[in-house]
Structures are given as C-alpha cells and as structure tokens.
C-alpha cells in the first residue's frame, strides 16, 4: 500500500478517512489532528501552564511528545498507585522518566504508598470499594490538587477517540445523564483558581497513538493494568471496533453526533463549582469532607495485603 500523498510505502491505513500514509506524512497528520482538536475547542494557548496526567502508556506519552513538539510547555504528573503485579506501577513510572530524560519537560510524581502508608488496592479492600473506583477517585483528586496548588491553568489527559466513544456508549446504555452532560473533550474552569480539563487526543484512535509511539521510538508500557483486564469498558471498545470493522468511521460518527447534541443533556446537569471547602484538605468539595478525604483519611485503619 502506498502513501496517498507521496507514494512512498504506507505504514497505516486510516480506513475511516480512506487514507493511507507513510511514516513522515502520518507524523505530520497526527500533529495537525491534535492541533485541530486544541483549536476547535479553544482548549489552551501557548501561554497556559499545562499539566498532563501520564501513565507510561501510549496515549499520554504520545500526547506529551506532540504537545511539546507543537510548542506547548507541558509538565507531566505520574501517580504511582503501588500496583505491584508484574511491577506494573514501577515500570510505568520508569517509562515516564525515560521519556523525560531527553526532553525539556518536568515530571511530578505522587507516590500513594509513601503519602498514605498503603497502596490503592489495600485501601480499596479495607474500605470494601472496587479497585477501579478507588483508583479513579485518587487520580482525579491528585490531578486537581496538584493543578490547583501549583497554579496550572489546564489539566490534559490522554483520552482518545476510542475512550470517548466507549464511555459514551456505556453512559447511554445506562442512561447516566450526568455523565452525558459532561462528556465534552473540553471542560472550562468551574471557578476561580480551577483548571480547565482537556482531552486533546479525542480525534485520534488508539491504533494511531500506538503507531505514533512506535515511529517516534517512544517506549511505553504495553501491559494492561492487571485490574482493568475484565473491565466492562473494554467490552464497549470491542463492540465499537466490531462495528468499525464493518463500517469504518462508525466511532467518529457516534462521538461527533454526541458533540453536536450534547446540549440536550445540559441544564441542571452541567458541571458547577462545589459549594464547600473540604474541612480536611481545603479543596473544593460537595460536602464538608470531600470524597477523597472520606476514603483515605476518615477511619483509616486496617491494612490488607495486596
């Protein structure tokens, strides 16, 4: 297969765009896609301080590389959850350090075990809460906490088109109207001192971010999180990929349709500034104690082995 632009050997066929590209033209195409996402949603400018949540995976490291190349100064935030299965968390953190080594960017690391004396898995079991839910709560809290306390204007995450479309499918199947109101790749600051939240990869698929990393020699963790292997979320992705295989463009058409119609879910469900300050950590909260502090700091007793 030949590149549709230069007739050199293609490395990827973008079936949803009826386009085959060589390594050079795919690289240029990826930069344009991310810049288009940033521009179309006015996500941020080159004056903004951006913090990117990095996991050591293909998406966040591809995005970090692209933002840096586009001239956006971006710091990385790695949250080490203490997942010891096959050295998952430590390997992921190491790959973030490998990425930083040859680039002019900063990496901030939050080590949950050091900060709280136990891993997320141990705490989740002690609190009888699902690990994925505890992990999500902890990551969201530290993204906000680091952004607010260190004065970042914008939080960026590596969510791609597959993530957005799968989350949309799951939310429609369960009619989670609150989430349907807030599924945009751009969420403006909800108040003074709050960061905007952005997903600049929402036009790119997982296959594209993987290909980008391989072509740029970016080492990323290939192993899936051991706790996510049976996640329902993966099943939504597989369903959409089966539809995509029969009818290329289905995922984008599905998510684009949502973006055109998401105002239907707005109104009372729109994201607002929480009315309280948490009495323990001082961050904005919906209750007098925020859900993170209720989970991590209230009745913080029993430890269990992973």
């Amino acid at each position, binding site marked *: 297969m030949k590149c549709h632009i230069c007739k050199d050997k293609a490395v990827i066929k973008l079936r949803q765009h009826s386009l085959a590209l060589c390594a050079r033209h795919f690289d240029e195409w990826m930069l344009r896609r991310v810049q288009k996402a940033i521009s179309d949603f006015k996500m941020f400018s080159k004056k903004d301080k951006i913090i990117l949540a990095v996991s050591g995976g*293909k*998406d966040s490291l591809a995005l970090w590389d692209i933002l840096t190349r586009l001239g956006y100064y971006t710091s990385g935030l790695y949250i080490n959850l203490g997942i010891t299965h096959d050295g998952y968390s430590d390997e992921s953190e190491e790959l973030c350090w490998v990425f930083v080594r040859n680039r002019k960017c900063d990496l901030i690391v939050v080590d949950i075990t050091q900060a709280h004396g136990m891993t997320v898995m141990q705490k989740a079991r002690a609190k009888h809460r699902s690990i994925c839910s505890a992990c999500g709560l902890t990551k969201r809290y530290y993204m906000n906490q680091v952004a607010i306390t260190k004065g970042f204007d914008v939080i960026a995450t590596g969510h791609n088109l597959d993530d957005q479309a799968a989350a949309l499918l799951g939310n429609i199947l369960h009619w989670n109207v609150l989430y349907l109101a807030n599924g945009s790749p751009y969420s403006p600051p909800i108040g003074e001192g709050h960061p905007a939240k952005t997903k600049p990869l929402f036009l790119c698929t997982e296959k594209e971010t993987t290909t980008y990393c391989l072509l740029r020699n970016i080492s990323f963790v290939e192993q899936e999180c051991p706790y996510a292997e049976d996640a329902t979320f993966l099943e939504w992705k597989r369903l959409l990929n089966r539809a995509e295989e029969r009818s290329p463009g289905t995922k984008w058409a599905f998510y684009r349709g949502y973006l055109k119609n998401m105002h239907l879910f707005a109104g009372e469900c729109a994201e607002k500034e929480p009315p309280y300050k948490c009495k323990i950590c001082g961050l904005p909260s919906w209750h007098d104690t925020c859900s993170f502090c209720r989970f991590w700091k209230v009745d913080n007793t029993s430890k269990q082995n992973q």
Partner: protein
Amino acid sequence: MKVYYKGTEFRFDESMSALKLLSKLSLNVNEVVVVKNGTIITEDEVLSRDDEVKIINTVSGG
C-alpha cells in the same frame, strides 16, 4: 513465520497477508498494529515463512 502476540509465540508455515493472519488469530484490525521484522506494515502486506512478526495490542482500559 514466528508471530508474537501478548507474550505468546505462534508459528505458521505458509505465506499470507497480515489481514489473513489477524483473521486466523481472531484479531480486529482496529485493535492491533503489525510489525514485520521491526517495521510497521499495513494489513495488505504479505508475510513470508521467514518473517518475524510482532502484533501489538492497542486497546487499553482507560
């Protein structure tokens, strides 16, 4: 050819396209990247008996 996918090695004696190989392994073309002898390829490319192929999963849990 030797084919590596998610830590497992598969062996195939006959030449075939990458798309055919994915079909034999029940893999969706949207969920993997195929690397032949260290180079990323498109799915129409033919794989021969001496090739070393790595199939990289692209689906992550989010």
